[in-house]
């Protein structure tokens, strides 16, 4: 069971959240061409290690969070509330 520390709601169980995938993919410019878009839609780094990912707090504040999580140990090292805010270390969020 993951315990995710939502910046708005506090620490909650993973079942309150929906995983929305790799947050490091960046939408290309509109004229970037088909290959850039195919890569954006389909290709993933699929890291064994730290990964930035989207989690939607559906059972809480309904905000989209960016969570940095280790894909082998499942340790979470940072969580930020919106895409624009800089990542905060966990202690500061608490």
């Amino acid at each position, binding site marked *: *069971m*993951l315990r995710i520390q939502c910046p708005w709601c506090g620490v909650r*169980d*993973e*079942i309150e959240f929906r*995983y929305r*995938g*790799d947050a490091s993919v960046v939408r290309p410019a509109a004229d970037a061409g*088909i*290959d850039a878009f*195919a*890569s954006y*839609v*389909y*290709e*993933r*780094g*699929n890291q*064994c290690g730290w*990964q930035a*990912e989207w989690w939607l707090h559906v059972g809480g504040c309904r905000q989209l969070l960016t969570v940095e*999580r280790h*894909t*082998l*140990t*499942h340790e979470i090292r940072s969580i930020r509330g919106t895409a624009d805010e800089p990542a905060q270390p966990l202690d500061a969020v608490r």
Partner: protein
Amino acid sequence: MHPESESQPQTTDAAPSSSGRFSGWRLLVEGLTGQRGWSRAWAKAAPRPRYRVVIVGGGGHGLASAYYLASRYGITDVAVLEQGPIGLGNVGRNTTIIRSNYFRADNIRFYDYSLKLWEGLEQELNFNAMVSQRGTLNLFHTEAQRDLFTRRANLMRLLGVDAQSVSRESVKALVPLVDLDNGRYPVLGGFLQRRGGTVRHDAVAWGYARAAARAGVDIVEHCEVTGIRREGSRVIGVETTRGPIAADTICLAVAGHSSRLAAMAGLRLPIESHVLQAFVTESIKPVLDVVMTYGAGHFYVSQSNKGGLVYGGGIDGYNTYGQRGTLPMAEEVAAAAVTLMPGLARLKVLRQWGGVMDMSMDGSPIISKTAVQGLILNGGWCYGGFKAIPAGGMTTAHLIARGEPHPLAAHFNLERFAAGRTIDERGAGPFPFAH
């Protein structure tokens, strides 16, 4: 006869020498002489410095590909490199269900070819894989679901594949434990494929390994691939924990680790790694002689020959390389089990484990050349790659030997994503965690 038999090359007889053959007679003789005459099923090969073909991954697909390369395509200068002992990956972790009840015609053909290979596999490999065609029964709980299953059954029958609908009463007759009128999702009926069933998964790894080794393939265990060597745009070999090995063709068959191996050759794949769990209860007397799936949640169950109920559900839902599983999914799956068969509530779960799988962006596998010359990918098997082992191995061997895709697996190419020809059975879109 399978439909594409004309396109199959001639079989070269790779039957094991009679001295090492398994038979009822030998079983009897060994039983009377203290079981001292058995020999190792396959040799523990040390890697040679070069091979024509190196297959990375000693799971079902890697071993089957090697076996068919040697037995059907006459290529025996082949090594299978496995980081641990063979058979401890997903081939030994799955819930052992085989079936060909897919929705899309190209998938029905591929998976039914696999089912036909399963039907003759034990004779071909001279190995008891306990192929049991006990039938797979999918339950439906709404009228829309019934229409969808009926359509699927019709599509299958048009292609000559067995499928039938069964009434509520027949569901009860097949599986008396089912609570047809359960309060949440009453059962309206079912969809049955008689030829579906289960196979002893470990025996599949061992049977293919033994037959491949006898046909001349080197099976190299405890040999982890740590790098892929290239010269310009083509592969020339691999780096391993047992030294470098040169090869003309490298085939990746590493199940949940395809992205990591592809990255060694500079490729990004349309794949995420996710964990799927399986559960086994204590043994009970025979209560379930089909494979049954629930239509109002993700849950499938069969009873093993030892009497335990083997069941599973969906993936945990977020990327992971951790070969374990978490509790929310264990609870969800158990809830489905008890909704459907309240009598199971008293059973104790004895064992639980997880396996890391490639979840592809459209939920379908990849058997394909890649942008790197000489590098072939067999991966993206998601939940469903066990049943596909015979056909996956055969069509991968074809691709390696002939340099062009086998007609039954041509749609599993990597270009389908950029070309907009994804094979999305569920229509779930490019979200691996949704397939």
